[in-house]
């Protein structure tokens, strides 16, 4: 008698090959390929396809899906699962992302590897549930109280929804830090051809467990990060969101312990940013204008380069794939190497990431913001090239 398999492989469900997939679905498959075996979430447009997908497929690959009572509990449940040694993810959008800030801060403080997806919709508040925006860029970086760093990735294609999700799990494990995947609604909902890889070829870099009882459970010197002592293995772990020493004991009255902990939490991202940051440079040589664009706006910016070419305007394009930590040195080098007269930052918000670009480039080149509160209309390539022409006239 043939016994039934206790679980299936991801490639049993999705054999390697090319598929037409929605961005959110591609992201969910990326999570399955990355060994994500726990998902807790709460329904919210425009991210719900991710949880719907996980509800259907996670049980088949031996994972656990649970729909929680709210976003506060969703993020806390994945933190619990991560401590139990299982890769875990949640997905949400603006209003839910606001609620999850609480849990994100706890994950930062307890050095818990988790992956959180925020498919950006138009805010503030309930705003426009089905419309795209890039208004959560600063919230992703600064949304919690206290000093901290997290890693934020901005995919622009359905394929990247899959690829960057695998990357997100590896980064979360490597640096014991929450990783936020931050597509906008357009990237979440667009359908494109996606190549699903053979799962054996997927790179998984996982946390290591402590080798001896003496090894610290938390902290480090910013570069070296303590191993991840998961629950139930006899480590007698003390996990706490309060200030703690390297064995987890609460030390809330000790200035030195607090200072060391906070600088470690910040420096483990800052000092490793060369290894973390991903970006792309494209466009023309001898360009006059440099565009900096991410997410779905990057797609419009690519077309704007073509439009510029037809009109004899040479444009170079810098695309931060890792929004945070921001690519400071790389961006400065881009401005210097291309020698552009001006930088234009088109964004679907009232001017957010442009503040970071200005901070980085202000001594090198003037930075202009093209901001659009679209209310449902994306930024078009024509709008970008129109604004570029205005800038050229003004420079």
């Amino acid at each position, binding site marked *: 008698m043939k016994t039934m398999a206790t679980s299936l492989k991801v490639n049993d469900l999705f054999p390697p090959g090319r598929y037409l997939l929605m961005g959110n679905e591609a992201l969910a498959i990326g999570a399955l390929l990355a060994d994500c075996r726990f998902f807790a979430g709460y329904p919210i447009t425009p991210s719900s396809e991710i949880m719907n997908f996980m509800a259907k497929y996670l049980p088949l690959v031996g994972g656990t899906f649970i729909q929680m*009572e709210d976003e506060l509990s969703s993020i806390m449940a994945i933190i619990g699962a991560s401590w139990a040694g299982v890769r875990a993810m949640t997905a949400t959008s603006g209003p839910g992302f606001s609620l999850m800030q609480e849990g994100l801060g706890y994950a930062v403080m307890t050095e818990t590897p988790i992956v959180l997806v925020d498919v950006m919709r138009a805010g503030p508040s309930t705003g426009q549930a089905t419309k795209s925006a890039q208004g959560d860029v600063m919230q992703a970086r600064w949304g919690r109280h206290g000093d901290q760093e997290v890693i934020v990735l901005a995919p622009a294609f359905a394929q990247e929804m899959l690829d960057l999700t695998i990357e997100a799990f590896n980064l979360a494990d490597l640096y014991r830090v929450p990783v936020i995947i931050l597509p906008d609604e357009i990237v979440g909902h667009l359908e494109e051809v996606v190549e699903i890889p053979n799962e054996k070829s997927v790179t998984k870099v996982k946390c290591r467990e402590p080798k001896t009882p003496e090894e610290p459970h938390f902290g480090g010197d910013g570069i070296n990060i303590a191993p991840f002592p998961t*629950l139930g293995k006899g480590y007698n772990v003390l996990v706490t969101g309060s200030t703690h020493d390297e064995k987890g004991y609460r030390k809330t009255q000790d200035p030195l312990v607090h200072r060391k902990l906070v600088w470690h939490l910040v420096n483990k991202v800052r000092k490793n940013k060369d290894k973390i940051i991903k970006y792309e440079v494209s466009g023309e040589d001898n360009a006059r204008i440099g565009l900096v664009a991410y997410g779905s706006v990057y797609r419009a910016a690519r077309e704007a380069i073509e439009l510029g070419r037809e009109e004899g305007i040479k444009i170079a394009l810098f695309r931060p794939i890792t929004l945070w930590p921001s690519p400071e040195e790389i961006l400065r080098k881009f401005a210097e190497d291309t020698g552009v007269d001006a930088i234009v930052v088109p964004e679907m918000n009232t001017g957010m990431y442009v503040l970071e670009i200005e901070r980085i480039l202000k001594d090198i080149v003037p930075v202009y913001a093209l901001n659009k509160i679209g209310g449902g209309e994306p930024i078009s390539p024509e709008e970008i090239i129109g604004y570029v022409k205005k800038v050229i006239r003004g420079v």
Partner: protein
Amino acid sequence: MASQTHPLDKYLRTEVFPHVMCPGCGNMSIANAFLRAVDKVYGSFEKFVFVSGIGCAAWIPSPHFKADTVHTLHGRPIPVAMGIKLANPALNVVVISGDGDLVAIGGNHLLHAARRNADLLVIMVNNFNYGMTGGQLAPTTPSGAVTITTPYGNPEHALDVSKIVAEAGANYVARWTILHQIQLERSFIKALQMEGFRFIEVLSPCTSRYVPRNFGNLKNILDFFKKNTIDIQSAKRKGTIGDKILVGEFVIRDRPGLLRSIQLLREKALRQWEGKRK
């Protein structure tokens, strides 16, 4: 002088003692009853994980228990505990926290974990107020009681937490006071061996905040616990509880826990998938 040891020392991080609970606080006598129960049922903390929120009761396991302890955010121990248990069913997950943590800020999680029959043992220390922050009003503060935020008396009504958790679908619910050491230990022993959601509420004196404002001294509240509680069995015989607080076992059920339900559906999902492929 020979060093003093206690038979339950192996469950404690003795290096953090003496503990920081106030003199007369009920927290450590609850811990004592719980540890006696664990010692009788398991004899060790192997595979135990303790999850707590924010507040005095949350400090019972963290850092005192020599086990994996997760000290979480205010109100959120139950979702963290659910994530741990669902991700690793081999672990024995116990939540220990206070009434403010579990019923006010975390009330929604408590209600839904009971509804789901999540496989957790939740121990709620009910001291009728927020002790750690100075003695503010809690959802469990009786009407008329004085707290620092109800200086003229509480205008609201208290929630009967055990009743609600029992109604919501828990497999086991019991309420005792810290004076019911034997009954409490028996409840822990029983609950530790059950599946599904198990909830044990323990009425406990907050000797720094609630007791001085409402009872004068510790003896008075302990007398109140003795005189003003009535066991569910005797209440049934009498047919009335008057203005007394009901103690005892509110519900004992044998419904499948959330884990078992999920596992059954996982098998069904696989069968459906295999069927489709043929």
